[in-house]
């Protein structure tokens, strides 16, 4: 019987059925960072447990690292304590740690693929909801809580129920100035922030076939913003080409065997899907959020919704709450909304291709007066490559601060924070209330090129006009 990738990977990793009917699922690859792992190691010590397969857990530090201060001890003693704790735990339990000194540190969802640790047909877990990113390689990758981090450390498994699979097919060519970020914002707007609850999203169609791995990662990354814990793209030649020669990729005779094995995990033609959604790529426009969740999106040409026109009472209340927080006028154009900060980075859009694309357009432009613009590479390797290509200089000449690698202002657990009611044009993934570090700070999500356009214009802008994209 034809099967989907999700079913194949699930079946290959199902260890046994537990008493409550859940599956004990083998997690082949476990990624950890400093925020959600220390308590898990504490539980391991309390229960006197050992790490079952220390070579299958990989650590990095990303959330709390300052991006403009490289010398330790950090000014924030709590950040330093978390850093020290991770170092201690990795050393004690024999776990590979991509610390800053290795030159391989970065956001966990950028490091895994960069190192070739993220591979097709595997299961991956990390105490981080954006673990869905790794699905871009045809892995089944779950964001998990800290108790489950403990479970994976101790048993290399966790208790889980199978998910349904929704195939989201996007076909055709994206119009100029429309990016992978717009594709996922469009999908979440269409299906809702909880439309994916209980589902794995399989992204397919000619648009995805033509996407680079980085574009696929951007889409898979935000699956969780649509409620889907897992999102994936079937592995193909693009996937294999990306992985070839990476530090943890198979090599020599093992490479061909691995590719054949990886290929076998792709969904079979005619397999069952619990739901299918089809989208025409040409219908997608540069998309920005106007509210306080990632599903509250509109195209750059649309107006902010008017609660008076809402059909349901809770929809009206939701719009009113969002507009009050965002300080936007009902029915007003989003274009022209003044911004204070521009942030390019995060596990969604902090990769080499994001900075290349931005550099291509901002060259010769200047960030508007009064706008603080920061560009934060997702990893040390991304940073180095950008610097080799002179991208850092182009961005700096335009008025962006070029920073060191980390999660930075996506969730502001480091010193990069909004202040007061500042409004940020952001290439990150969440526009929740207070997300970027100020309890009253405001976020508008968009693609990196749209952030660059907003930085140059000083207000939310159509990058196609600002940069004459055609």
């Amino acid at each position, binding site marked *: 019987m034809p099967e989907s990738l999700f079913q194949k990977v699930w079946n*290959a*990793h199902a260890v046994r059925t*537990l*008493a*409550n*009917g*859940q599956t*004990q699922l*083998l997690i*082949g690859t476990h990624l950890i960072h400093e925020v*959600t792992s*220390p*308590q898990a190691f*504490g539980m391991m010590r309390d229960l006197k*447990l050992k790490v*079952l*397969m220390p070579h*299958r857990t990989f650590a990095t530090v990303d959330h709390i690292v300052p991006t403009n201060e490289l010398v330790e001890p950090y000014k*924030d003693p*709590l*950040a330093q304590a*978390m850093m020290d704790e991770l170092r201690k735990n990795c050393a004690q339990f024999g776990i590979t740690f991509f610390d800053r000194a290795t030159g391989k540190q970065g956001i966990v969802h950028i490091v895994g693929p960069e190192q070739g640790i993220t*591979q097709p*047909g*595997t299961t991956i877990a990390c*105490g*981080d*909801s954006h673990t869905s990113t790794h699905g871009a390689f045809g892995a089944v990758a779950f964001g*998990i*809580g*800290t*108790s*489950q981090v*403990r*479970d994976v450390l101790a*048993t290399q*498994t*966790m*208790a*889980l129920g199978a998910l349904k699979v929704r195939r989201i097919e996007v076909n055709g060519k994206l119009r100029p100035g429309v990016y992978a970020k717009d594709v996922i914002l469009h999908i979440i707007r269409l299906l809702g922030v*909880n439309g994916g*609850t209980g589902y794995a999203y399989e992204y397919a169609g000619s648009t995805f076939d033509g996407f680079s791995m980085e574009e696929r990662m951007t889409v898979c990354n935000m699956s*969780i913003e649509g409620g889907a*814990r897992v999102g994936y793209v079937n592995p193909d030649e693009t996937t294999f080409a990306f992985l070839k020669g990476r530090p943890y990729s198979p090599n020599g005779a093992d490479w061909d*065997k*691995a590719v054949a094995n990886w290929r076998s995990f792709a969904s079979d033609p005619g397999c069952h899907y619990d739901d299918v959604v089809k989208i025409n790529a040409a219908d997608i426009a540069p998309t920005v959020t106007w509210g306080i*969740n990632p599903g509250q999106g509109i195209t750059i040409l649309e107006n902010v919704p008017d609660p008076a026109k809402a059909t349901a009472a*809770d929809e009206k*209340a*939701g719009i009113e*709450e969002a507009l009050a927080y965002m300080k936007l006028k009902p029915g007003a154009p989003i274009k022209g909304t003044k911004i204070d900060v521009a942030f390019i980075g995060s596990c969604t859009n902090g990769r080499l291709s994001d900075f290349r694309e931005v550099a291509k357009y901002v060259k010769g432009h200047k960030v508007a007066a009064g706008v603080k613009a920061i560009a934060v590479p997702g990893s040390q390797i991304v940073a180095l490559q950008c610097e080799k290509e002179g991208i850092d200089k182009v961005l700096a000449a335009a008025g962006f601060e070029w920073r060191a690698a980390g999660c930075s202002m996506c*969730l502001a*657990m480091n010193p990069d924070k909004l202040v007061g009611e500042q409004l940020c044009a952001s290439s990150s993934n*969440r526009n*929740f*209330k*207070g*997300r970027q*570090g*100020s309890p009253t700070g405001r976020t508008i999500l968009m693609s990196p090129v749209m952030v660059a356009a907003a930085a140059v214009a000083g207000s939310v802008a159509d990058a196609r006009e600002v940069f004459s994209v055609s």
Partner: protein
Amino acid sequence: MSLAKITSVSGRAVNVPGNDIDTDRIIPARFMKCVTFDGLGEFLFHDVRKDPKTGQITNHPLNDARFSGATILLSGANFGCGSSREHAPQAIQKYGFKAVIAEGFAEIFFGNSTTLGMPCVNANREDIAKIAAALAKDPATEVTIDLAKLEVRFAGQAVKITLRESARDALVNGRWDAIGELIEGIPSVKSTAAKLPYLAA
């Protein structure tokens, strides 16, 4: 490891209305700069309970003295969406809540809560409104979540709830923290791993 069999939760309840209440709202990221979960209860809903500009307490339901001591949290659709942070259910539990009733839950939040032995049960919108109305009328209303009958009883009324069977089974049979059972399975884990090329090496 012996765990409590959670067949019902009874107590007073508080309504925190709204859909899509995310984990950043439940526990802002800056309070996650810690290496234990101790003391997180204090920061539950911090930025909506305290006016960020004035520092004054707001009219958030958790600031309403009539509901202090509530052990059941009532909310809307897609509760706990966003990040995978276990800090969110930990903060709710450490504040003193023993269960959550909502129209729906985000997947990761639901799993994290169940593993902590904190039932998250779904009720439909109309029924949540009925419970909320009873609470508004009498904040001392005793609410019982019955995981055997899958109903919530309050003020002489009863409404149906749903709960994923695997979670219900785990709670009522005292196996909501799976670690013991997972450890028992380690021999099978090793044989499953041996069949997978990327793990066999």
